[in-house]
């Protein structure tokens, strides 16, 4: 989306391209192509001929590669080449294992991503359950989550946030690109407090309501007997 916008916006910049710029393009291409990790713009700027507009160079390259099998993408202020997503099925190898996340870990990751900076207590409040040992560990080890700092409130709790690697892994240019972020914010679902217009109508009598309750059946009870108590542990 925003990449395409940017490409369109750059059209006026099409103008004459100098030999210096072509050389800068080749160099930038080579630098980014060679690396596996995204390369920062400052890293590129240091290595490109003086006086070229690095952003312009990069966006020209983005457009150049837009239709190809390998695309130039941006992760925050870093650049990387990545295979085109539509070719996934051809490139995918059987031996490529992406990290499998437990449901708990995935939920914690999403909460950290959407609510960052967020404290552990806030995560637990949202999930209503303690975060088990190891859940955050997995996310830290994957390099997706990091300690950001400490909240300037009593107790100075540590805040968590996501890393550039998280963005890279999930194909996000920046945090603002998280799916549905704006709607969630608009609905007040990313705040700790109930939005003022969030009201639940309250029934007048208890009788009307018993009808939409699902009674517990014998079947349920049998199932209960089979199952281990004291769950609620994640992982």
């Amino acid at each position, binding site marked *: 989306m925003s990449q395409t916008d940017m490409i369109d916006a750059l059209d006026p910049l099409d103008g004459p391209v100098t030999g210096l710029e072509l050389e800068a393009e080749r160099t930038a291409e080579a630098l980014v192509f060679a690396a596996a990790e995204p390369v920062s713009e400052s890293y590129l700027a240091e290595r490109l001929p003086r006086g070229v507009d690095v952003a312009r160079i990069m966006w020209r390259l983005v457009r150049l590669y837009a239709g190809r099998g390998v695309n130039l993408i941006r992760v925050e202020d870093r650049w990387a080449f990545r295979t085109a997503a539509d070719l996934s099925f051809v490139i995918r190898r059987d031996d490529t294992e992406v990290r499998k996340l437990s449901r708990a870990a995935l939920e914690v990751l999403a909460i950290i991503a959407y609510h960052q900076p967020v404290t552990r207590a806030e995560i637990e409040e949202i999930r209503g359950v303690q975060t088990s040992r190891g859940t955050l560990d997995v996310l830290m080890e994957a390099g997706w989550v990091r300690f950001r700092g400490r909240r300037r409130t009593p107790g100075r709790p540590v805040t968590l946030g996501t890393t550039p690697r998280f963005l890279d892994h999930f194909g996000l240019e920046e945090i603002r690109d998280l799916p549905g972020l704006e709607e969630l914010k608009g609905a007040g679902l990313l705040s700790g407090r109930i939005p003022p217009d969030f009201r639940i109508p309250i029934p007048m009598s208890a009788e009307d309501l018993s009808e939409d309750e*699902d009674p517990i059946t014998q079947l349920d009870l049998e199932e209960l007997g089979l199952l281990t108590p004291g769950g609620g542990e994640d992982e």
Partner: protein
Amino acid sequence: MAGDTSQSATPMDRLWQDTDARGVSEAALVIDVGGFEGPLDLLLHLARTQKVDLARISVLALAEQYLQFVDSARRVRIELAADYLVMAAWLAYLKSKLLIPQQVRQDDGPTGEEMAATLAFRLKRLEAMREAATRLINRNRLGRDVFARGAPEHIPERNGQAFEANLYDLLNAYANLRQRQAVTQVTIERRKVWSLVEARELLTSMIGEIGDWTALQHYLLDYMSPTDRVTATASAFAASLELVREGRLEMRQDGAFQPLYMRRATGRPGGPVSE
């Protein structure tokens, strides 16, 4: 996201009539406590069986379902984790507040409506995060759908640093080291009784900050085995007094044998700050 459009405008009367129209013969609820991530998760599951937008759920019905579930579980002698029981106590309290017509508001405690709204909000927020997580994980992921250079030719230097280490490595090293040195073997005896303070802590992580007068104790005792009640009451009372002394809690009792209300202490200057 479900329902941010509908929640505000719908007239409340119609809402509650709606519930009658719904099929009552839902597939029987499958109760698998082990499969739930705590009481809030279970509540969310129950709410889904109501098949309505979370902004429109009947909190009372939900509370009723949950309490029924807990009762059944207890009847067949399934030992439920403490947090399930604390949630039950809270819901029983909520239920009583919702059912009893607005009393003369003798104090500033939250109304049943406010408490219900809080619960509904939390359920909705949790559901929203679940959906967000699903959308996130279904994106094109690096190493599965999208690939980096397979044979990188160099590693860009990082800020000219000759050594690489991140905060996580550092903390991990420190924690492991300190733990290694703390050789003392500690076995924590399993607690038979949890104090009201613990209950409050559990509840806080489930429901959020309980800022106002709450008479949880009264309901909580219902969910303890008779043998534990006396000791639970005693230890809860002692623990609460301690917290009052530390300025972290305020307590109130309207008369002898009346429920004991408590709330987080507010605005005590210079008092120790709890986490």
